[in-house]
């Protein structure tokens, strides 16, 4: 594909966004009734389902129980139809295992696990359509599902990716937020940051792709963290909307019961 650039001369990205713009985020909480909490999240064309079970008592694998906090188990999986070429294995490959571990770490530091000693929380994530920043979308969806399940969190966990478009005509290179699949394949570094925006703390940071020079890390990380803050605003609005809706529904059904 000749000529695709991360950032064109007129300052737009491949899909028409400006460097600081996120993709459109749409989300819905409580999409399933079986799990304790669930959420569906779209970040552009990246679509993710999250389901949370727990906290519940540890049945299998009792050895993993912690006496002072909850044990968290995350499972990342990608639907075989999520990419343009069919995937062979939905989960359990190296990459997914690494994702599982990262997710575990993120949520162990975000969930107030000390409130649930000797219990276990399961977070299941399924990527339905992959179009870049899959891991970030998973983290964001899991946050919503955890909130839906009523599990206390220190703050929203928001994750966002950023990359760096090479310099043009003497201008410094431009950092760009929320990387989509085309941009991922165009090369350039990829920084993935998960933060607790209101606590201003970073829970997970990962750098991949081509090497990034030390002097560029700050602007790129800065971009990712503003991106994460923007995502939080969207999630917060969705959560409040959802709660309002639930309350409204309860009032309605309450009235119905009285009548």
């Amino acid at each position, binding site marked *: 594909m*000749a000529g695709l650039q991360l950032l064109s001369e007129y300052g737009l990205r491949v899909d*028409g966004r400006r460097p600081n713009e996120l993709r*459109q985020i749409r989300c819905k909480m409580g999409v399933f009734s079986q799990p304790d909490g669930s959420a569906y999240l779209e970040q552009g*064309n990246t679509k993710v389902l999250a389901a949370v079970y727990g906290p519940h008592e540890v049945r299998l694998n009792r050895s993993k129980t912690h006496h002072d906090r909850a044990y968290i188990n995350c499972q990342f999986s990608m639907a075989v139809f999520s990419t343009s*070429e069919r995937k062979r294995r939905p989960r359990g490959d190296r990459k997914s295992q690494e994702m599982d571990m990262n997710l575990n770490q993120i949520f162990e530091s975000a969930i107030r696990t000390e409130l649930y000693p000797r219990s276990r929380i399961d977070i299941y994530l399924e990527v339905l359509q992959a179009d870049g920043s899959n891991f970030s979308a998973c983290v964001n969806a899991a946050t919503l599902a955890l909130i839906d399940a009523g599990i206390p969190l220190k703050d929203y966990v928001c994750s966002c990716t950023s990359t760096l478009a090479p310099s043009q005509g*003497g201008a410094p290179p431009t950092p760009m937020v929320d990387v*989509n699949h085309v941009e991922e394949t165009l090369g350039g570094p990829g920084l993935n940051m998960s933060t607790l925006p209101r606590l201003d703390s970073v829970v997970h940071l990962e750098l991949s792709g081509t090497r990034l*020079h*030390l002097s560029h890390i700050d602007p790129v990380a800065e971009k990712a963290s503003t991106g994460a803050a923007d995502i939080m605003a969207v999630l917060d609005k969705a959560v409040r909307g959802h709660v309002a809706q639930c309350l409204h529904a309860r009032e309605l059904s309450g009235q119905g019961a009285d009548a």
Partner: protein
Amino acid sequence: MKTSKVFVKKTKRGTILKIVREHYLRTDLTCGSYFCKKCFHAPKDLILDEVPEILSSTYNFHHYLLLDTNIILDQMDILETKVLSNIILLQTVLEEVRNRSSSIYKRTLDLVGNKNKYYTFVNEHHRETHVESKDCESSNDRNDRAIRRAVEWYNEHLTTPGGVSLKVILLTDDRNNRDLAIAQGLIALSMKDYVQTLEKHPFLLDKLSHKSYDADADGKLRAPLFPAHLSAEQVHIGIKNGKLLQGVFYASRDNFLEGTVNVDGMDKSVLLQGHEGLNRAVDGDHVAVEMLPETQWSAPSEVVMQDEGGDPGDVNPDEEQVLESAVNGKERTPTGKVVAIIRRNWRQYCGVIQLGFYQGAINHIFVPAERKIPKIRIETRQADVLANQRIIVAIDSWSRYSRYPKGHFVRALGEIGDKDTENEVLLLEHDIPHTKFSDAVLACLPKMPWAITKEDEDCRVDLRNVCICSVDPPGCTDIDDALHCFQLPNGNYEVGVHIADVSHFIRPGTALDKEASRRGTTVYLTDKRLDMVPELLSSNLCSLRGQEERLSFSCIWELTPDAQILSTRFHKSIICSKKAMTYEEAQLIIDDSSQNDDLALGLRGLNNLAKKLKKQRTDNGALVLASPEVRFHVDSETHEPLEVVVKKLRDTNSMVEEFMLLANISVATRILAEFPECAILRRHPTPPISNFEPLMRSLKTQGFDLDVTTGKGFSDSLDKAVKPENPFFNNMVRILATRCMLQAVYFCSGMIQPDEYKHYGLAVPIYTHFTSPIRRYADIMVHRLLAVCIGADHMSPEMLDKNFSNQVCKNLNYRNRMAQYAGRASVALHTHLFFRNKIQDEQGYILYVRKNALLILIPKYGLEGTVYVAPKKGEVLPVTFVYDEEQQTQTCGSVVFNPFDPVKVQLSLDQSDRQREKLVFKLVEPVIPGFSVPSVELPTEEPMEVEIVSEKARPAAPPAKRTKKGKR
């Protein structure tokens, strides 16, 4: 801020994949016009005038122009005159241009950047101008529709509620698009129609490109001259199933009906012959070739053929017979024919007009200066003015029915024969950047008066009291290296090489750095130097002049008296050269045993060590090659060359060279150890044995065997090729051997395998360039890497990016090659000037024997050319020459011409054709009655039509390692 309308795009490639992409449409994109009061413009986006100037007599209302893709691709020369302004470029168009031609895309961006009132409208992401592709619609049709939609939108948008409006005119050379646009009620014109109405600028018409989109319409009645090209799809399939091969076409310099294609993965290049074989390929084009069956394979013809004479019309005269008769029982090489052009590599060509037969005609033939390029038909209304000028022309198209390609006039350079014009031609033909340094570049220079500061002193080693001196050719103002040497108490020697610290002044990423990187190298012409960095740096601050304090980058060794390295160290330093000497002065000091000061002792020490180093090197198999280098003594008033001298080599030349080699090797080792992935190195690939075949054959006839299997064996067998009766023989062999070599190139170590790092000519495993940062950009890059290695400087991000470095290396290699050719062309130009009104007899030697010619080298001038021994068409020679292919000889009566034989020739300049001056040689000795001419001392008779056409620029494998000072 963000309108988000997701839409779906399908693309298919290779295996069928459905690709879904998001595409955001926006409302914050503006139209860029001062006229518009609706958009919220950012000040930098306001480009188009509120009241655009009216140039056209027919379309005499205020309007903007909107260009279709084909206009930008073909009519760039008109756009670059900057007559037209207030132009809207669509994103759709720009992207199509980028996919089609990156060079035109760059030129387009330059126009936009120059603020010529070109506005880029991002129509694809604009909510109202975005169009979805329909089913069964080609992307081309969709793009045309998008362009028309944008015109429509602009017309609506630029209408005020009061009904005042500005129109937008669509310029397109695509008739379909034009018709559809007119049907839609838009104003659409072809470039020609529009330019014709510009009465103030009639000469724009000359620059009109004549590419016709309704192809082949011009000559349905005649039989086509060339076979049709295959379609892109056929080519794709053909290449996939192996029936077709692809490669770059190189036209032959000696024969306009012959060329070769280098195909990847084949050791021999594919030969192409005749009009049909070449099938409209122009030098440099990327072509698809079909191999002929082995029975039809041919051999490179041994005739020298030029496309002489005027325009024969659209016929192909039977020139090809000459070719066919050439193949008899000779070793045949793979032969093919061009079936399609994958990508044209046309550029602009310098040359002259060959006037048509009739006065006032507008069709003329253009003859390019580069012999590998065919003649071009152009249309011009100012032929009388241009007849005496060198002009630039671009090719537009080459139809099947036309013998020559069609082109258009771009600009005139100046009077033919004028030295400045000819120099300009030379620079343009070799693509050498020769504009003045821009203000942005000059702003990066240090402010004068410049002095060494305290900070410099703190971080550098002070070597001001060491006895350092520099040795260079006379008149050299860009001194980039200096040396010192003294004996240590333990009997060993300390030797230091001090290189100008250019990277201290040229910081990465600045405009100065970018310009230097683009220029790549300083170009030395006979009468002129084109600097890579501004003069303040090259001749002053970086030049290590005598008795002046300068910053330098030092490489210091401890050497045993046997020239073995015990230790190496690098550091940035401050030096003060005691004396800047010429090679001759240094030689005198060394030879004068009465001088015994530090300087003389140091020089002698260096000289002795250098001899030992050289011995070590040649023992390892380093080659000693030769190429004739000449200097002109130029009259200081008129700048006419007065005298030609061959450059002399002294001991001191080789002394400096040895230590530069040593420094380069030490630095290469160091930076590779520190940066295995991104070190900038220089390699010289081992030439394939097939390269040596012609030389081996002609040497065999002289009774010498050439061992080409190893570098060492080769160098030894070169030493053995000596003939006592012909003292120049060995030199000739070395000159020819040099031509068999491949080019040495810069590369980035992460891009190729370590076993390919080797430098064949120098017989060292790794090598780089460190010692001439004033005139080579590669050295600056190496300096930066080394500075990081020793902790003297920061790392910059680009240095670690091996793809970026590789790109830079590619440019450097290209610039280097071009600079070399330009240098040689400049020598040739001055030789021509030198021979004006002069006839001289000179001693020459036969380089090659061809079927119809002898190629002769005149060492005194470093000149070579062809003597035709076969009669031209319609001519009768009183003598006949017999060609022996096995023995590589031409025999005429009792006289036998062998390769390497000395001959005497008479040189004169043929000025009968003012457009193209030729250096004509006539054979003087050996005497062949009826063929040779008497020596100039005797009264001359009617000269014979035997001529040697001197070459303007040789492309043959040049001695890559040889630079201005013979340094490597």
